């Protein structure tokens, strides 16, 4: 069964067509890669899925529900979480609070109950805390939990973004260039982490990534975007040997 379906999604900015009739269908528990040259529309696609943009045409269906015109925070609460290409942590919150922030939207007792310190909300706060610590263990940041987020190294910040996204208990996780700026050891670690997350959390992952090694290694299926169009889709093997892909990456005539 598919978790997320994009039907004929188009996005225009002024006269520019950033996405052109894109169909995508993400299956349960799959790791799906989206690749393409700069400006191909990959991040635009993420912004549409998470509700930052309302697509000019087409519809998005997540777990049987239409996402068009649903506000971003509700989409997040429904179970789509993301990380950002240029890291966007809450720099002046502690590592722990960054993760907890992700839990607040999906927690049941409201802000008022929290402020009055009602027993129900205190129990929930405890659950949120233990959940956050677990996530920090998972991304190996538990011992830095009281640091400000902006004191972390680059690779640590990327892992913290993943932990914060997981605090939403998503069914679909969008990773926007998670390997950017990482060295090869860190990339190995990241791939291991992504696989563990999928197994532990039973979720689907969409990965936008420039690093072909990473994409080909962990994705089960890959879609290729070029100038806002999907020019190919298939397994890593199929993509490697696809003529249209080779042309768009190496240029016509290659």
């Amino acid at each position, binding site marked *: 069964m598919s978790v997320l379906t994009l039907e004929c999604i188009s996005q225009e900015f002024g006269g520019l067509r950033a996405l052109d009739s894109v169909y995508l269908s993400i299956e349960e528990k799959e790791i799906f890669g989206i690749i393409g040259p700069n400006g191909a529309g990959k991040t635009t696609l993420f912004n549409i899925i*998470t509700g930052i943009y309302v697509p000019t045409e087409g519809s998005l269906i997540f777990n049987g529900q239409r996402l068009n015109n649903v506000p971003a*925070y509700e989409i997040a609460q429904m179970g789509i979480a993301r990380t950002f290409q240029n890291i966007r942590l809450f720099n002046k919150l502690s590592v722990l609070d960054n993760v907890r*922030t992700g839990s*607040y939207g999906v927690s049941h007792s409201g*802000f008022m109950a929290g402020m009055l310190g009602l027993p129900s*909300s205190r129990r929930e*706060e405890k659950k949120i805390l233990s959940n956050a610590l677990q996530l920090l263990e998972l991304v190996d940041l538990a011992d830095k939990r009281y640091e400000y987020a902006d004191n972390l190294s680059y690779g640590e910040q990327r892992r913290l973004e993943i932990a914060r996204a997981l605090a*939403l208990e998503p069914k679909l996780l969008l990773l926007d260039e998670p390997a950017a700026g990482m060295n090869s050891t860190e990339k190995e670690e990241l791939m291991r982490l992504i696989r563990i997350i999928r197994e532990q959390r039973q979720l689907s992952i969409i990965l936008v990534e420039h690093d072909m090694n990473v994409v080909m290694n962990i994705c089960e299926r890959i879609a290729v975007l070029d100038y806002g169009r999907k020019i190919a889709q298939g397994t890593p093997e199929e993509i490697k040997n696809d003529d249209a892909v080779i042309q768009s990456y190496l240029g016509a005539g290659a």
Partner: protein
Amino acid sequence: MFFEQLINGLTLGSTYALIALGYTMVYGIVQLINFAHGEIYMFGAFAGLFLVAAFGVNIFWALLGAMAFCMLLGVVVERIAYRPLRGKSSRLSALISAIGVSIFLSTLMALLRGTNTTRYPQVMSDKTFHLGSVEVSSMQVIILLVSALLMVGLQLMIQKTRIGKAMRACSQDIDASALMGINVNRVISFTFAIGSALAAAGGVMVGIYYNAVWPYMGTMAGLKAFSAAVLGGIGSVPGAMVGGLTLGVMEIMGVAYLSSSYKDAIAFAILILVLIVRPQGLMGQKISKKV
């Protein structure tokens, strides 16, 4: 003499700080200078006056009632005048809308009550305490205590509670907050409610302290508090507290040691100086422009 002036300055300063907090919290989250904030303070003063005059309540019920009323007023103003503009039009439109609300509210009160100054009924016996050679009035003690209590409470709320963390998250990255499932509009409403309640508390206490309320009292107080917020670093909550107190003390010292005709000039001279020398304020962060 000096210590008495210092107490006077701190008293005035804590009311500036209470108002400045509303400016700075709202600015921190939506980057809007809420020019209607001074009028919320004025409405707070009148709401307290109404409660005292109509029901003969004591100062604490007047404070609580005025704070509750202004919470509602602040939320309604945000809902009607700012939210429809957010995201759809430039920040300048919201600023102009704020100026419009400011004029609307003060004129509304002038229509309802006339433009004359109203005196507060006697709400408490006026005692004077002597600390050595320093004289402190009971109202000064109340202003200092209530302000301190409110500011400590605010700080605890921002640091410890869920909504406080949500507010901090929103002030750092509002879009990322929404993508983490935080209902940003609700956090903004809450911020307006809290800021307005603090301003209302300031309004009631100033009304009683100076024994005068009038429909345009929010204009000057609002501008002074705004200067205090800029002095402390707009967007910074501790900054607004420090800025308010500093401004109050400097103003009173200026009156005491220079001349009372400089009273209003001092606040704005400081505003201009801060903007030239240290635009991020005492405790604000330098904003590096995103490219």
